[in-house]
């Protein structure tokens, strides 16, 4: 098996192989998990011609250094610093051709928390219920650590523009695609009425992201709306993005690794679009919650997904055209 193409990991901190999540999980009692910034993960795969659900790397906070055994095509999205190949910087949010043995350094910029690395063809990793997404609760998942290697399904011949000496593609992603908003759109939750007029505090107050943030939940400190009714709540399914006020002076925003049921009332729910932003927030940042409607949130979600559809189509078309035999394939020097 030593001949199989592999991605060697030279350094990695808080890196996992993940995908869009274990969609079959919640019905069986497991959290959905998967990439916290779903848009960035989808974009990374789209940019290299992969399926949306293909496994990719998620790095939180620090970044990763990789060395492919074969020529590969990869992409870096999320909140990355510019990826560097053998010390030379290339744009993120674009396909990047890397030669066998070259070293790719992917950092995470201060403007966010999580970066994604997708490789054309993706990785062979174990799956559970059809998904490779790590579940820390049940001890499932593929960690990416220094000295390990990920088996690549296939290499990819270099795609290098002869004139520029680099991979140059424009698949139509706007320049500010990775910009993170600290205003999070939310929709009043199913239990909003239990908080009476006090719910308005959620929308009027700034909150500070605490250091207690992970894939299960994000705690933010600030004025906490109090329930105007008392009594225990029967355990119910709680959605990803639910904002709860369990105790003390912190709100809890449930992320994709949350337990699927809880007995706390749900004040409000962060929209799909805003959850991608929430995934990029760092401790100490100030956030605000902004009230919106399901209709407006769906429109925002569709706009982003249609953008991804266009990127995926352009990428597939471009790679298909380039994959045709070419008499004099230019090489990078």
């Amino acid at each position, binding site marked *: 098996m030593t001949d199989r193409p592999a991605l060697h990991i030279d350094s990695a901190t808080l890196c996992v192989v993940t995908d869009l999540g274990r969609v079959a999980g919640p019905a069986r009692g497991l959290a959905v998990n998967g990439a916290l910034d779903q848009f960035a993960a989808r974009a990374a795969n789209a940019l290299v011609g992969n399926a949306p659900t293909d496994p990719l790397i998620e790095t939180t906070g620090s970044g990763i250094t990789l060395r492919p055994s074969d020529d590969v095509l990869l992409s870096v999205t999320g909140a990355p610093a510019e990826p560097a190949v053998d010390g030379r910087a290339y744009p993120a949010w674009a396909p990047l051709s890397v030669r066998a043995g070259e070293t790719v350094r992917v950092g995470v910029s201060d403007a966010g928390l999580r970066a994604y690395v997708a490789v054309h063809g993706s990785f062979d990793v174990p799956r559970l219920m059809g998904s490779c997404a790590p579940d820390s609760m049940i001890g499932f998942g593929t960690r990416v650590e220094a000295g390990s290697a990920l088996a690549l399904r296939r290499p990819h011949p270099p795609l290098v523009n002869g004139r520029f000496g680099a991979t140059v593609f424009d698949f139509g992603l706007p320049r500010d695609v990775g910009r993170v908003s600290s205003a999070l759109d939310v929709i009043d939750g199913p239990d909003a009425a239990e908080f009476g007029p006090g719910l308005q505090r959620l929308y009027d107050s700034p909150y500070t992201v605490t250091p207690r943030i992970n894939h299960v939940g994000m705690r933010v400190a600030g004025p906490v709306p109090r329930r105007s009714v008392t009594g225990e709540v029967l355990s*119910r399914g709680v959605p990803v993005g639910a904002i709860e006020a369990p105790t003390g002076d912190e709100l809890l925003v449930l992320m994709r690794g949350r337990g699927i049921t809880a007995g706390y009332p749900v004040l409000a729910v962060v929209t799909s679009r805003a959850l991608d932003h929430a995934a990029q927030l760092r401790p100490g940042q100030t956030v605000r919650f902004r009230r919106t409607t399901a209709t407006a949130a769906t429109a925002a979600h569709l706009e982003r997904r249609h953008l991804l559809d266009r990127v995926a189509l352009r990428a597939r078309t471009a790679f298909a055209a380039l994959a045709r035999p070419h008499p004099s394939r230019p090489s990078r020097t």
Partner: protein
Amino acid sequence: MTDRRAATTTAVSPCGDAAVRVAVEGEDTDQVWTVVHRLAGWLNHGGIHPTVTAVPTYDAVLVEFDPYYTTGEEIASHLRAWGATAGTQGAAGGRVVDVPVLFGGEAGPDLEWVAEVTGHPVPKVVDLVCAGEPLIRCLGGPAASAMLDGPDFGLPIPRLATPRLRVPPGAVSVAGRQTVVGPVAAPSGWRQIGRTPLEILRTDTETVVPYRPGDRMRFLPVDESTYAELLGTPMRYRHDD
């Protein structure tokens, strides 16, 4: 909307842009639970769209979806149609899992406290837990915990004021009028009265845990040596070989 046969009503409330909560109301809590699980079964088998998933509990179903494919409003209108044409098939499950439990001591640090609060001697508390075959009402967080009815202590059991940071895998705990069996180590505010030596969670199986809502559990008291003997044995249905 009213399902005449079931004498229950359902109400759909938005839960963000990618989920709705369907609350089922009715006089008979068993009937409500049956409707909740029947509805979730229909949704999870692609009743509306393959990307729609449902988490059934006691009196509500959380329905999650990708707003790229459908919306809460569309789901609400599908559910109105479902209410009118609901099938008669009951919830899944119906099998029994035998669960040996070591009660008290380190395995059940709250057993004596529960005895005090309920006014029953410890052996009576154990008898009550081991009486009958309680129904698994739903799978809860974390990690497909089995949420069961009862036992009937005569009063609800208050939770811990400060949850424990870690209860071990296999913990058998009570709170309110419910029992929970947890497959993994996790924080918990429930009162831990015992622990099963069986291995509940297996990530090499497609369903991860061997039970589902509608199944029943039978708790069987064991001593420390039997506990040690059974440690790590996979949990399975009573008549599985």
